[in-house]
């Protein structure tokens, strides 16, 4: 215990004086998280896409009392697309990424009972926002299609002297989708956005882990590089205290990183509110912040516990540094994967991924957001136990000979 406090004393002094690294541990989540929110939520919405809606038909016709003109359709499309944040034009231009041509004969076909009207949609590849624009155009055309269909059905019914309910003809099967949370309660409006943001929080664990894991690797490898290790290992300090002292110091870094990630998370939820008037701040809950804090802290401990045996057994400092970078890489990729998939819902054999503590920690954050706190606690506990066991096992792995003769 005495030895442990001595190593911890040294590590804390060094850590507090390494202001740049400490600042990185604090600032990385605080800066990166809201930035990620802005990039993923706001930027795609404001990226400029020019849509040309060109009316080559310039005609009008009617279905019974319902009159249709190509100009009104083009105007309707341009108005709504502008409302959705796209730039529109009525002329064919070089800058247009999406071009919708209403060809000659369109209105005649649209109002006929024998022909199908068609439009030509041209899109330039290369931007997800263009795909989004195309999706909006398709949505609006479907809407127009629907209105025209209703008019035709109504008119046919009138001609046949039948009472026709348009829905019964056009949509004989009504589909009502009810969204439930995994806990089984009806999902509130905005629940999907809440889930999306919680996935971002899971990804954000990578930003906490990366600087902290680098700090941990440096605290071991750096002792060798700075030629301080050999003297410390020759003193009466026990090997267990040496490892546990460094681990405790790293866990202090974890506490700092965890607190920063909570601040970053609050900013993440506030960023879209400020820049995009999307009120997502209401989705911040104390449970999510507490679990995020615990996950950030545990993520750092996990990185330490995985790095320790690798660093302690590496034949050279360079090998140790590369191994540590690999651990950071695995953590980052695992957290990134949680953006696209529920890592705790995979089938065998991929379900083995959950054994990677990073996957459990990402799942803990997402599950908390979905109201499954007990499941989140189970994931957190697993990761915590995993890291503690590995750290304790690593105390047996410290071989001064390997550390001393390892190449720089």
């Amino acid at each position, binding site marked *: 215990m005495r030895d442990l406090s001595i190593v911890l004393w040294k590590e804390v002094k060094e850590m507090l004086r*390494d202001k740049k690294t400490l600042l990185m541990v604090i600032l990385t989540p605080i800066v990166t998280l809201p930035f990620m929110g802005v990039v993923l939520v706001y930027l795609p919405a404001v990226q400029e896409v020019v849509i040309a809606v060109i009316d080559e038909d310039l005609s009008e016709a009617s279905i019974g009392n319902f009159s249709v003109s190509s100009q009104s359709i083009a105007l309707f499309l341009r108005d709504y697309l502008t409302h959705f944040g796209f730039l529109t034009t009525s002329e064919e231009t070089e800058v247009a990424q999406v071009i919708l041509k209403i060809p000659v004969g369109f209105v005649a076909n649209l109002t006929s009972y024998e022909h199908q009207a068609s439009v030509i949609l041209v899109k330039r590849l290369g931007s997800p926002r263009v795909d989004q624009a195309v999706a909006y155009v398709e949505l609006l055309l479907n809407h127009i299609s629907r209105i025209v269909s209703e008019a035709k059905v109504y008119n046919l019914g009138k001609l046949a002297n039948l009472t026709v309910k348009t829905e019964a003809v056009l949509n004989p099967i009504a589909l009502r989708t009810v969204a439930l949370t995994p806990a089984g309660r009806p999902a509130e409006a905005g629940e999907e956005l809440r889930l999306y943001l919680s996935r971002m929080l899971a990804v954000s664990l990578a930003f906490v882990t990366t600087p902290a894991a680098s700090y941990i690797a440096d605290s071991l490898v750096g002792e060798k590089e700075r030629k301080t290790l050999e003297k410390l290992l020759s*003193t*009466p300090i026990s090997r267990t205290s040496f490892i546990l002292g460094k681990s405790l110091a790293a866990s202090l870094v974890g506490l700092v990183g965890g607190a920063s990630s909570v601040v970053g998370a609050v900013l993440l939820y506030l960023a879209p509110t400020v820049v995009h008037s999307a009120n997502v701040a209401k989705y911040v809950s104390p449970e999510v912040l507490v679990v995020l804090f615990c996950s950030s802290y545990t993520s750092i401990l996990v990185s330490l516990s995985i790095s320790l045996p690798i660093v302690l057994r590496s034949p050279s400092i360079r090998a140790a540094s590369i191994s540590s970078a690999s651990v950071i890489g695995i953590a980052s990729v695992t957290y990134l994967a949680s953006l696209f998939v529920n890592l705790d819902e995979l089938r065998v054999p991929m379900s083995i991924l959950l054994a990677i503590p990073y996957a459990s920690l990402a799942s803990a954050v997402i599950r908390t957001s979905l109201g499954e706190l007990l499941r989140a606690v189970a994931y957190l506990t697993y990761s915590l136990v995993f890291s503690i066991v590995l750290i304790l096992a690593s105390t047996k792995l410290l071989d*001064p*000979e390997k550390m001393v*003769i390892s190449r720089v």
Partner: protein
Amino acid sequence: MRLSNSVVVRVLNLRKSFGKREVLRGINLEVTEGEVFGIVGPNGAGKTTLLRIVAGLLKPSAGEVEVLGFRVPKDVDKIRRFVSYLPEEANLYGRLTGFENMKLFAMTYFGSKNIDEIVRLGVSIAGISEQDLKRKAETYSKGMSRRVAVASTLMVKPRLAILDEPTVGLDVVSARYVREIIKQFAKEFGTTIIFSSHNMFEVSKLCDRVALIHSGRIVAVGSIEQILADAGAGDLEEAFVKLAGGENA
């Protein structure tokens, strides 16, 4: 088995290999209490490996090493309580002050209580002003760093101090100061000191007895006068060349 009080280090037929490369090839030597014992040899002769084994950092591949009656590697935890080791080119913790570096090494031997006296001794050995010792060690010159490092090694009054090339890379004035503090400390406290160097002049100034080491073997051991007489040489450098087998040794 415990050694007699007068023998602090005994090395018997010590061999050490790293993979296929044999670095020590049957070393035999004894260091007695209170003497300043020099290990002299060119770079790559095996000096550092020998000292690391005596300090308990490396394990012998074969042979026996006993320090203060304790065996290496079995009893290294006990050995480390009585031995203080300064590795070659060891640095201070740059973000700690000179004071804090000394405090750290004092604490590793005596815990955090009652170490003021030990640190005070360190300050007097280092011969650096208190104002300078309050600065971060990363701002020190190489000479100042080495003085604090040597002071940290000696201030804990170990029964055996092992100093691996403590003056290497220092300017003439700093090297002279370090030699002086080692000499003065050994005289004042009677601490056994093993001192390695490739500088024959330095060793002849400082050591009671020396061992000349070449390619992992001891080629001569004894007092400087004895070695010079046996080799029929005028100085230690000439003796080394003769004993090691010529100019290309």
